[in-house]
């Protein structure tokens, strides 16, 4: 009875996911390094990762486009969220690079450029701030992109950007946990990213509940149908809700309960990496299924 959208598929889900992870990783990493506690290794890892993540995401988007060469016209309509998305992504990439260069003085090739541009060192707090702000804007954009489409009532909700942004931050934290765990940055991996992520997941659950409730009972039958569709999809219920949200929350809660006693042990690090991976998988599934659950408004 309702028509499922089939214009935006897995490539777009991946693009939204990578935009969320990349944007959040940059926002968190750059802000922590320059404004919380200097951590050059983490800042570089976060900055480089978000460049790669967003570049891959952008390539996936270009592959999905029918006429990628016509992206040169992207400035054609400032009313469109895609226009702003491209602006924020480009902005993030630019300021991310400017922020990174001073940290890369020891690197071949790039290091020379960094050394020559001393001013970048002076401005690093600013470039980090702008880059982080753009990264945050990218995560917002992925939600607003969908919510601005009146053709699909399920997406057309102000709660969707909230959900996507919170989820993006959760995936960013999850990514940092995986990165730090694998890099041997033992001892610290579960402390701040893990604790904050636990809190973020709780927020995400609340946002998800609010969003699904509003869709199911908000008086728009197509949105209610979307909720039924999601709750009837094992990949969403098991893959996203259980494995992508509840399980990492439980793991993080467990490690928090263990306290300082467990800190630094291989097991704890392993659990940290695991919960980070689960959050990432869940983040992708959320976007994939929100897209799949997009049913057009029944006008006739």
């Amino acid at each position, binding site marked *: 009875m309702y028509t499922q*959208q089939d214009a*935006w598929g897995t490539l777009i889900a991946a693009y939204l996911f990578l935009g969320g992870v990349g944007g959040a990783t940059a926002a968190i990493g750059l802000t922590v390094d320059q404004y919380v506690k200097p951590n050059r290794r983490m800042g570089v890892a976060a900055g480089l990762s978000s460049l790669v993540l967003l570049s891959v995401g952008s390539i996936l988007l270009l592959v999905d486009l029918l006429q990628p060469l016509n992206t040169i016209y992207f400035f*054609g309509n400032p009313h469109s969220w895609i226009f702003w998305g491209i602006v924020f992504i480009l902005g993030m990439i630019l300021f991310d690079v400017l922020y990174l260069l001073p940290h890369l003085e020891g690197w071949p090739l790039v290091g020379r450029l960094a050394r020559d541009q001393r001013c970048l060192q002076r401005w690093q707090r600013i470039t980090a701030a702008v880059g982080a702000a753009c990264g945050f804007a990218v995560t917002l954009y992925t939600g607003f992109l969908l919510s601005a489409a009146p053709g699909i009532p399920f997406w057309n909700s102000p709660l969707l950007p909230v959900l996507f942004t919170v989820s993006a931050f959760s995936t960013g934290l999850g990514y940092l946990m995986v990165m730090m765990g694998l890099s041997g940055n033992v001892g610290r991996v579960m402390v701040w990213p893990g604790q904050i992520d636990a809190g973020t997941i709780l927020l995400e659950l609340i946002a998800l509940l609010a969003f699904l409730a509003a869709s199911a009972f908000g008086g728009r039958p197509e949105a209610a149908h979307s909720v039924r569709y999601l709750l009837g999809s094992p990949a969403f219920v098991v893959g996203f809700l259980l494995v992508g949200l509840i399980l990492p929350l439980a793991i993080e809660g467990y490690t928090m309960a263990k306290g300082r006693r467990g800190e630094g042990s291989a097991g704890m690090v392993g659990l940290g990496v695991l919960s980070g991976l689960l959050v990432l998988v869940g983040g992708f599934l959320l976007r994939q299924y929100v897209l799949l659950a997009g049913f*057009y408004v029944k006008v006739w």
Partner: protein
Amino acid sequence: MARYGMVIDLNTCTGCRACQAACAAENRTPFWAGKFRTHVEDRTTGAFPVVNRYFLPHLCMHCENAPCVSVCPTGASHRTEEGIVVVDAERCMGCKYCIVACPYGARYVYESEDVRRAQEVYGEGPKGSTADKCSFCRQRVQAGMEPACVATCLAGARIFGDLDDPRSQVAKVVAEGQAKQVRADLGTKPKVYYLGSLPDKEG
């Protein structure tokens, strides 16, 4: 400048699909892929013997507040001076935002596979892959003719004209108040009006 719109008379549409055929031939659309710029829905409601059958022509509403226009990043999807919403295939980057934004299901993707096939079937087609939809046959309107679907409809179920011209039939019918818009509550300000009863629910 004109403000073009249409009135569809549901009382006389007999579901013959001549409009779909005329449109496909005139605008060289990929019918072989089941894609048309206009559709005539065949809807059943009720149960025998109290069963009804409706024919509902769907097409682009050429909305005055068109979501497809506001979401298009390149401005390929835009409204002309005469109120016709068109896609500039040479600017379209194919992000498909317009397709998910349209509440009336008026758009489809003219894939590169379709473009290649169009060369075989029609001898020409769009230069490249693009989002596509009804253009009120702008090429015909500019030459003083009616859109192909209107000109071909034998039941006289499609009427086209300038909503701002009080002498035109569409303006008169709309002014009488009998013709209704579909889902005006969505705020799209559609310019295609319907005479006759729209069925409430599906059987």
